[in-house]
């Protein structure tokens, strides 16, 4: 009958407190956000501007080997941007939710808690990547990778400034739709492969939701494509030189906004994970880095879907250039800055929606997609076609 000695109260000395880690420090936070934004901008300038300019000026792109190295470096940089964006957005979202909810948010790691995500990532790396007994091992491991890869595939086609795009695809819009649909596969397969009932329910919901919302999303994108006369994203941005698409394309804009929140699986459309109903849904059984991949993918999408809102409807990189030559490097860097600022505003709006609304029910979700958004999107498509004819005739 031996018993562990219990720590008695008198043994616990009060810690000397000269520094309160929960004291709000808005100055530090503001500085950190500025640095985050600056580093992201710098990374974008390097990835989209400096590296291609270097390769082009040296003529390395002509050879097969040079092109190969260029592709590898660009892929690594795209991955870096995705990772940095996710790391930044996670802590920003948590800080922002803290602001909305009248609390301070994470405060303990780094000054004012701004390094929280880094420590989270280290913790997740160190965790055992546990898989329950009756999972399908191959698909269980593959699913997070599919979701993450699909998220950062989209990054490749997004133009951040005039001439600054990793792959200037002439079917950019279709590529976006295809890549985001691929993400749904990861979620559905991940839910089904884990062999649990909650995961299965989550996968059913995810399948229904993501596939349904692809349709209005694609139609809204198509309307933009019809109106601007091109599927190439940089052409679409160029087309908004005079007038941002949000004015003539307001209906597709609304459809795209709702559908992209649904694609993002954030409230009010977070049914596939629905932690209060399905205990996490499709990611119930995931832990460690497998979970982190789903998590990172979600936050990369939280950056990319607002970025697409900006590209398609809010003039992309357009902004006052103060007399700079649009083809000059400085002008392009400024354009990418405008692009990032607009994107940040839309990320904030997405976060705001996430902080405010309760969740829809599954049948209401389907009703909204098929009875509300789909007719609206079709109407928007027809409208876009008429507007296009009008523009061409006049």
């Amino acid at each position, binding site marked *: 009958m031996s018993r562990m000695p219990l720590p008695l109260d008198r043994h616990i000395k009060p810690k000397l407190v000269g520094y309160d880690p929960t004291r709000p420090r808005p100055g530090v936070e503001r500085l950190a956000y500025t640095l985050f934004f600056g580093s992201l901008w710098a990374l974008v300038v390097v990835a989209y501007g400096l590296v291609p300019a270097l390769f082009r000026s040296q003529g390395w792109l002509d050879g097969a080997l040079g092109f190969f190295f260029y592709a590898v470096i660009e892929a690594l940089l795209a991955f870096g941007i995705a990772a940095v964006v996710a790391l930044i957005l996670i802590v920003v979202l948590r800080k922002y*939710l803290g602001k*909305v*909810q*009248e*609390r301070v948010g994470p405060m303990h790691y780094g000054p004012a808690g701004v390094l929280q995500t880094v420590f989270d990532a280290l913790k997740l790396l160190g965790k055992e990547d546990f898989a329950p007994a009756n999972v399908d091992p191959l698909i269980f491991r593959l699913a997070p990778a599919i979701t993450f890869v699909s998220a950062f595939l989209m990054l490749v086609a997004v133009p951040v400034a005039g001439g600054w795009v990793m792959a200037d695809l002439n079917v950019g819009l279709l590529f976006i739709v295809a890549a985001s649909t691929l993400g749904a596969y990861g979620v559905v397969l991940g839910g089904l492969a884990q062999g649990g*009932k*909650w995961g299965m*329910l989550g996968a*059913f919901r995810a399948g229904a939701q993501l596939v349904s919302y692809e349709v209005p999303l694609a139609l809204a994108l198509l309307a933009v494509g019809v109106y601007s006369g091109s599927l190439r994203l940089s052409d679409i941005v160029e087309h908004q030189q005079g007038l941002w698409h949000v004015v003539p394309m307001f209906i597709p804009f609304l459809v795209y906004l709702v559908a992209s929140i649904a694609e993002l699986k954030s*409230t*009010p459309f*977070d*049914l596939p994970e*629905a*932690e*209060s*109903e399905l*205990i996490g849904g499709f990611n119930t059984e995931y832990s460690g880095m497998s979970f982190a991949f789903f998590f990172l993918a979600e936050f990369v999408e939280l950056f990319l879907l607002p970025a697409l809102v900006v590209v398609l409807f809010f003039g992309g990189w357009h902004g006052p250039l103060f007399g700079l030559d649009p083809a000059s490097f400085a002008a392009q860097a400024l354009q990418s800055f405008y692009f990032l600022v607009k994107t940040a505003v839309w990320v904030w709006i997405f976060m705001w929606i996430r*902080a*405010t*609304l*309760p*969740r*829809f*029910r*599954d*049948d*209401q979700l389907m009703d909204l997609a098929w009875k509300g958004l789909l007719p609206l999107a079709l109407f928007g498509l027809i409208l876009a076609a008429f507007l296009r004819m009008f523009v061409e005739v006049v």
Partner: protein
Amino acid sequence: MRGPTQILPTDRADEMLINMGPQHPATHGVLKVVIGLEGERVTRAVPHIGFLHRNHEKIEEARTYPQIITYTDRMDYVSGLQNELPFILAVEDLLGVEVPDRAKYLRVIFFELYRLASHLVWLGTGMLDFGAITPFLYTFRDRERILEIVEKTAGARMLPNYFTFGGVRRDVHPDFFKDVADFLDFFEKRLPDYYALVLDSPVFQARAVGVGVLPKERAIARGASGPVLRASGVAYDVRKAEPYDAYPEIEFEVPVREEGDVYARFWVRFKEMEESIKIIRQAIEKTPKVGPYKGKVPARMKVKGSRYRAVEISRGHLGAHVVGDGTDRPYRIKHRSPSFANLQLIPDLLVGARFADAIAILSSLDPVFGEVDR
């Protein structure tokens, strides 16, 4: 391991049985519901309770009467103080103790403060079930102010053990009335925010209106009480039906709604919070400024007889049946808890609903498992 009744093997190919709980986040504790799902539609719901069973009633048989009060706190731990009252009232009846006026009003103030605290917890956790995280933190922050006020006087926050036979245990802190008045002013300004976030939110209304409808007759027959009963159109409130303490002298309304759906239950609780504010304001005004806070109670309590008393706590009709055999320990105490009776409605309400509705219905019943399992 809960025996052979736990697993009901399903004989239908299109039905999936799923164990919701006892560790499910939306069961607010340790409820387990075996739910049959056909797609997203609930085909059966079998509740299992008892995971938090401590057999209070047996423990209390071995304690003296003053010792028991602290156990009653631990039933509905969300509205801790309110649980003390039915037991105390029953013993006071059996002993013939007179409660001074000041104590009666103090009891009313504390009782209603805890109703506010409890409804705030319900609102936050209930909205968490609806997928909205923000109200949770707002409500807990407001509740914290109530608990701080109580702590100043009673010395504890959730389970203060403050009421006692013949009145309250000690006089209130000098700042008490000012603190309460300040809080009420503050809280009145907060209520519109809650209306905007919850009741007036179109997404919430889409989720709640017409969901989990409980007909009036069924609610009465099942012994439902509190907001669940009043949302079904029955104006049964123990504060009006069998008034206790200072409630007869206070004017307030009993909010009733006819629909009986989740929205009505939310609405009733919202209106109850407004009524509580009114009640506390009146009580503060009417509390005698001086006077004893505790009546004369025999030093050695020897209770004989049987008495059932009920009060209206945040969740409904909480009763205590005290049987004394003339010694200083009770012969038998039975606690009639409102959530226990309300949870009998699970099969009535859940079957036929969608799975997401099932969560919403459970949160609108607002069970607290400390009192269900006792």
